[in-house]
Structures are given as structure tokens and as C-alpha cells.
């Protein structure tokens, strides 16, 4: 009994220091100048455009990585094509990539001084230090999330119900829409939420490839960083609180999907 209480106390203290006190302080700080002060900070044009850009990048990332992630997971879980183990390893690589490295890596391929980057720029597509580069970076860091969530789930579910659908005359495509997709919907939801969280929160990689132009390529997290560096803690705090509120919704969604679909983190 004593041991258990000591353990619980230890866990609580760690929790308090690591998560609880910081979270409470932040909300308190954001509201310290009253709600009007909070809104004044959030409604500044730079802050608004930063938030808008963050959400745009997140939406585009989700739109691209969700379907591609599902396809990749299906390929890894259900097909053994030559070299799939290599694909499997490559999918995991972004996990090991520090965000700054991810940014640098993309810069080295698509930057204005490279062959591909120059070619694209001559054709009017500016990749780096612009929206495409920021989306590309976010795609890179979030790609494993969907795949790693769905592969074990697909393996665990097996393929019997899909086979049943085939014998009933359903084409592969219809089987996917009517049987496979509904079965993985909670896992998919969970990984989508993880992707949103990561995309909204991505900082290091975007910092490297964005150029951080206020009002143009400044995302919400870059705005927070800039404001903190400029010691404008109130501005940083306000935008952070908006992000944290989104996180709160994300957190709740995570619990919902996890509870229903037995989701797990990578």
C-alpha cells in the first residue's frame, strides 16, 4: 500500500511539473488581460493571417496524406510486392528526421539553387520560401502517422470480410468503399487527428523552408516563436492559446477514436 501511494505521488508530481502547471499557466496568462485583451491580440492582422496559413497548410496536408497513407498502408499490410520492405523502412524514416533536418533536406532538392528548384522556378513555380514548400515539408513530417496507425489495424482485422464482399460480386473498388473503409474508420480518424495536430504544430521544418515573411509565409507557430523572441509574450500567449484550444479539441477527439477503435500511437 505504501509503495503504491509513493508511486502514485511520484507520478502526480511529475505530471504536475511537466504538464499541468504549464498548461494552467498558459491559459491564465492569455486571459490575464481579460477577454478583450485576448481578442485584440488574436485579431491583429499578422496573427490572423498566421493562423489562416496554418489551417490552410493543415487542410492541404490532410487532403494529400490521408488517401496516400491509406493506399500505402493497404500495400504494406496486404501485398508483398518486390522491395516492399524498403518502402516500409522509408515510410518510417521521417520519424527519425529532426524537423530542421527535414527542412534542410527539402531545401537541398527543391531550393532555388538546385537543378529541380531552378527548373520549377523558371516555369513559374516557386517551391521553397513559399506555400508549396511549406506544404511539402509538412507532408514529409506527417506521412508516417497514417501508415503506422493503419498497418497494424489492417493486419489485425484480416481480409475475410473483404473476401465475402468479392464472392458477393463487389468489385475491388466497391469493396474498399463499402467494407474496408468503414472498418478502419476509427483508426483513420485517430491518425487524421494526429496528422492535424502535427501539421498545425510543425515548426522547425517550416521555419527552415518558409523564409518567415510576416503576413505571407508566417504560420501560427512561427508567429509564436517570433513573438517570444521579441519578448512580446502577450501576443505569443494569445496565439498559443488558440492553438492550445484546437489541441484540446484534438485531445478529446483522440480519446473518442481511441476508445472506439483501440487506436495506438506509432
Amino acid at each position, binding site marked *: 500500500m505504501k509503495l503504491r501511494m509513493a508511486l502514485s505521488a511520484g507520478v502526480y508530481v511529475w505530471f504536475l511539473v511537466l504538464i499541468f502547471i504549464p498548461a494552467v499557466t498558459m491559459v491564465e496568462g492569455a486571459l490575464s488581460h481579460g477577454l478583450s485583451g485576448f481578442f485584440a491580440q488574436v485579431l491583429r492582422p499578422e496573427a490572423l493571417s498566421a493562423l489562416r496559413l496554418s489551417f490552410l497548410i493543415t487542410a492541404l496536408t490532410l487532403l494529400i496524406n490521408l488517401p496516400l497513407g491509406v493506399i500505402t498502408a*493497404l500495400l504494406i499490410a496486404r501485398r508483398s510486392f518486390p522491395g516492399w520492405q524498403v518502402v516500409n523502412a522509408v515510410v518510417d524514416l521521417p520519424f527519425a528526421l529532426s524537423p530542421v533536418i527535414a527542412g534542410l533536406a527539402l531545401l537541398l532538392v527543391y531550393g532555388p539553387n538546385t537543378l529541380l528548384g531552378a527548373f520549377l522556378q523558371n516555369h513559374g513555380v516557386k517551391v521553397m520560401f513559399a506555400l508549396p514548400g511549406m506544404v511539402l515539408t509538412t507532408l514529409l513530417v506527417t506521412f508516417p502517422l497514417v501508415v503506422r496507425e493503419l498497418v497494424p489495424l489492417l493486419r489485425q482485422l484480416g481480409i475475410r470480410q473483404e473476401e465475402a464482399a468479392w464472392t458477393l460480386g463487389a468489385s475491388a473498388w466497391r469493396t474498399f468503399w463499402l467494407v474496408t473503409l468503414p472498418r478502419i474508420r476509427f483508426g483513420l480518424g485517430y491518425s487524421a487527428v494526429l496528422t492535424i495536430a502535427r501539421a498545425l504544430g510543425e515548426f522547425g521544418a517550416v521555419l527552415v523552408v518558409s523564409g518567415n515573411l510576416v503576413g505571407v509565409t508566417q504560420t501560427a507557430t512561427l508567429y509564436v516563436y517570433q513573438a517570444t523572441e521579441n519578448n512580446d509574450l502577450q501576443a*505569443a500567449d494569445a496565439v498559443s492559446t488558440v492553438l492550445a484550444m484546437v489541441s484540446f479539441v484534438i485531445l478529446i477527439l483522440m480519446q473518442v477514436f481511441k476508445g472506439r477503435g483501440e487506436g495506438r500511437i506509432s
Partner: protein
Amino acid sequence: MTTNLAIPGWRWMAGVVCGYLLLLVVCPVGAIVRQAFSGGVGGFFHALASPIGAGALLLSCWTAAVAAVINAVMGTCTAYLIARKHLPGRRVVSALIDLPLAVPTTVGGLMLVLAYSPATRIGGWLAAHHVNLVYSRTGIVLAMAFVTFPFAVRTVEPLVDSLDVSLEEAALTLGASRLRVFWQVLWPTLWPGVVTGLSLCFSRGLAEFGAVVLASGNLPLRTEVAPVYLYGLLENNETSGAAAVSVTLLALSVLGLVVPLCRPRQWWKRLTEPRGRRVHNNEQVGEASV
């Protein structure tokens, strides 16, 4: 499992996925490696040998290791208490564990700064007692620990769930001490999860930028970790040096991720088996002498 019906047009899709991964992951990572060795192997090591760079890499390694170890211990305890339903308020705790996954890492760093910087109440009180939780090496560990805590808990949790309570109870009724129960009943099962969690925490801690850059203070040679140093190099357009540091950091992270794939369970068996056999022999000898 290998029917051609499994995926609509799978050949076509495999091509799309491979192309996507090539453009998104393989080429960029390859470009970094190429850039790092553009000055030959000598150039690579020269870039690493700068005292600030080497210091940053070293600092990254040990702070990530410390954060990983602390998290492995606390994470295992938390997972155990939650799964065994001992922790009062475990619903809330369980949900909050995922918080670092949900909040942007920058926001996480800012949270720590707002809570513990010397200018605040708690931070001020701590600073008066010579404890600096941010803008210090402790701050780096704290930021890394914050970001990686979910991994430490979530890798152990399913293993605790799979463990039958009656095993522990049986051991206790047989008169085993708490420590013995932990060591002989819990540890052999939890070990692989703890190692996986440890290595994930280490890799992610090593890679972490957003939270650390805000909470550490970034003093070169004192509190500047490798990713921050890397960013500084990039700001100054020292691409080759940055690539060299990147490759080293990436290699360390990959190493961290690969360790649990080497079947720690089997390693564990190999490590423990000889000992088990020796004990057995001793017993036999004991019996013979009687």
C-alpha cells in the same frame, strides 16, 4: 492474403506511392548525405570537429538520454498505475498523457517558459532556491521529456494490460517481496515495451526543436542543442556543415529507432538464460551434497 483482388489497381498505386516517397523522402535525405560528404570524408569530420558543433551534438545526446530514462521510469509507473486502476483520477491523467501529442511543440515550449521562467511566480521562487527549470540544461531535459512523455506511457500500457493480475497476486501469496514480484513477474513482460519507449523517447528528444528552442535559452556551448545549432548554421548559409551535423544526428536517431526492432525479448532471453542455468546447477549440487 495475396489475391490480386486485394487492392483496386494495386500496381498503379504502388507506383504512385513509390514515386511520392521518392520525391518526398528518399531524394531529400539522399541530398543531405551527398551534401555532407561533398567535401569528402575529411570535410565531413572537419565540419563536426568545431567545438561548438561537437558540444551541441554531445549535449543533445546526453540530455535526450536523461529525458528518455526519466520518462521510461515515470512512464512505466504511470502506465502500470493506470492499467491497474490504482491511480485516483486516472481518466483525466490518461487523457492528459496525450496532450503533448496534441499541442504544437512550440506551444509546449512556451508553456514551460510561461510557467517556470524566472520572471514568473513559480520560476522566481525556484530561481531564489537556485533551481532553473528553463533557460538551462534542466530546461532542455524538461522540454524533451514533455514532448516524448506519451511515447513512454503508450508503449508500455498494452503490455501491462496483457499481464494477468493473478500472476502478481499469486507471487505475493507465495510470499515474494514486492521487489521480487517486480523483478521476476513484471519486468520480463514489460521489458520490450520499456525499451521501445526508451528508444522512441531518445530519438524524438534528439530530433526535438520547437519546444527546446524556446525553453533552453540557446547559449552556444552551454544550452545549445544540435538542432538549434543546425538552424544557426542554416541561417548563416553554412549548408555543408549543417548537412554533416544533420547526417550525424539522423544516424543517431535511426540507431535509436532500430534498437527495439532487434528483438529485445530475445536479447533478454539470451542475457538471462545462462544465469538461470547456473542457478539450476547450484541447486543440483546442493541436493547432491545433502
